[in-house]
């Protein structure tokens, strides 16, 4: 096994992120930066979900609950307590991780469709709770005073900074995903995905491994939630816990190739491009989600391994490089 091959996939991934980050910087276009921000955001979210969905084989439909909950907690600390963005992001990540830990102890006993259904239930329950939780603003949510941005040199500078922070987080998610994939812990997760009973007989402590995978896949969405709502300047229960957004992440992971590092990146990028095209197209703009649904159906039926998975199957020689 040659050394460079092991790092090739990671290198390509990080270069791609660098490319997406530099594109708006070079063109100096604020609209491009918004597009790039969203691409980086969904790459990070899809890659986080992939740790649970792709590596561990547990389908989480309601993964957005960590994004919304973490985002809410961080936002609360910024607006109500007056923290700066950095500790707030940390708080968002930790609270999302903690939520996943507790949920994991409860719902990760369920397998297959039952787990998937439970995750939807958890997301809906959380939305209903936040909707009625006055400290978080109830149904109207919370809004940020623009003066908060002064600490970062004004609103424009804050937006620009948020973009580079997003790029950094995305790189961190990809590195984490890669490290998990190539670690002993990751091998245990893959074993659980393939056959949980057999994995346990071989000594994989499945309940613990699953819980940590769940926690790991929840922390980054929590952090990203804080950054996103900070950039938006407000947070509301409805968009923060939007179930179909969660399902879109699932489509991205499936499209690119679950269980690989590059797959979710490619899927997120491709899906985001397609979404942008559909939303601006006269015919498709109102039925954009049905196209996503159809796409998921086609992927599941014909290329269940996704694009990267399909290439890996077709060209076994590339397996070591395309991770």
């Amino acid at each position, binding site marked *: 096994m040659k050394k460079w091959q092991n790092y090739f996939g990671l290198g390509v991934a990080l270069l791609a992120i660098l490319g997406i980050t530099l594109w708006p910087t070079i063109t100096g276009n604020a609209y491009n930066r918004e597009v790039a921000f969203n691409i980086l955001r969904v790459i990070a979210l899809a890659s986080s979900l992939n740790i649970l969905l792709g590596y561990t084989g547990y389908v989480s439909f309601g993964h957005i609950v960590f994004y919304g909950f973490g985002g809410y907690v961080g936002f609360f600390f910024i607006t109500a307590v007056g923290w700066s963005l950095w500790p707030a992001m940390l708080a968002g990540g930790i609270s999302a991780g903690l939520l996943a830990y507790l949920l994991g102890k409860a719902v990760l006993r369920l397998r297959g469709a039952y787990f998937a259904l439970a995750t939807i239930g958890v997301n809906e329950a959380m939305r209903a709770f936040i909707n009625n939780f006055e400290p978080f603003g109830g149904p109207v949510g919370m809004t940020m005073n623009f003066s908060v941005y002064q600490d970062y040199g004004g609103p424009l500078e804050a937006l620009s900074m948020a973009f580079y922070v997003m790029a950094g987080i995305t790189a961190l998610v990809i590195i984490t995903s890669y490290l998990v994939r190539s*670690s*002993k812990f990751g*091998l*245990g997760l*893959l*074993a659980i*995905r*393939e*056959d949980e*009973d*057999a*994995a*346990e*007989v*071989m*000594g*994989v*402590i*499945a309940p613990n491994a699953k819980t940590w995978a769940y926690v790991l896949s929840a922390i980054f969405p929590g952090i990203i939630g804080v950054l996103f709502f900070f950039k938006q300047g407000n947070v509301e229960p409805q968009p923060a816990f939007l179930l179909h957004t969660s399902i879109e992440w699932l489509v991205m992971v499936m499209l690119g190739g679950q*269980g690989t590092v590059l797959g979710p990146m490619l899927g997120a990028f491709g899906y985001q491009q397609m979404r942008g095209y559909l939303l601006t197209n006269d015919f498709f703009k109102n039925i954009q989600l049905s196209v996503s649904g159809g796409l998921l159906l086609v992927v599941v039926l014909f290329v269940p391994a996704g694009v990267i998975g399909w290439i890996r199957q077709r060209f*076994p020689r590339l397996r070591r490089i395309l991770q």
Partner: protein
Amino acid sequence: MILDVKNLSKRFGGLEALSDVTFELQESEILGLIGPNGAGKTTMFNCINGVYGPTGGTVTFNGENTTNLKTYFMARKGLARTHQIVKPLNELSVLDNVMIGACFGGEGVTLKKAAVIAQEVLDFLRIGDRSDQLAGSLNVGQKKRLEIARALASRPKLLLLDEVLAGLNPSEISEMVNTVKEIRDQGVSIIMIEHVMHAIMNVSDRIIVLDYGRLIAEGSPQEIANNESVIEAYLGDPKLAEKLMQTMD
């Protein structure tokens, strides 16, 4: 003594799958476990390695009471098993499959070391040239070997083999019997469930027989082959015809 099973019972609702089974296993011994279908052989394995918690009785493994210990802790204590219906991790390579055994069972070595051990074990089982292949693409005989390889990679003290000969052709069977003996020669104790009689008689040091969850006989292969209650369990009552003749007189 590597394994001491005392008064082991397992009840599934109204079905008594195992009742009051007691036996022991010495180090480096091959113990054959036979019995008709549904006698409780696989249930016995599941109770020993912690897949099920037994309803009664105790299991002592390597001097330690391990009754009710979860299966992953048993694996880490040096107990490995194969499954009657093979459970390959299809989408992973053969090497990865075996590495999981080395990484998580027994000593729990690092990935790097696991790769070396896995390749050794695969070579020993003569599927070393398949290590890059996906496990799902192996044929039945190779999958059985993979099951054993995964178990062996954890360097177990005790190996439970559940029908590793089923579905193999005669030449594969004699090869596998030799493999089992070689494994024992490395100091591993083995309990082996098997239906292929000539093989189990040949390979076992001692045999125990289960029928309807009860231990009905224990002894050397010779003794078992001539034991009346064993023949009865397999073939029905051998004296049945005789008895019938008597009642007709």
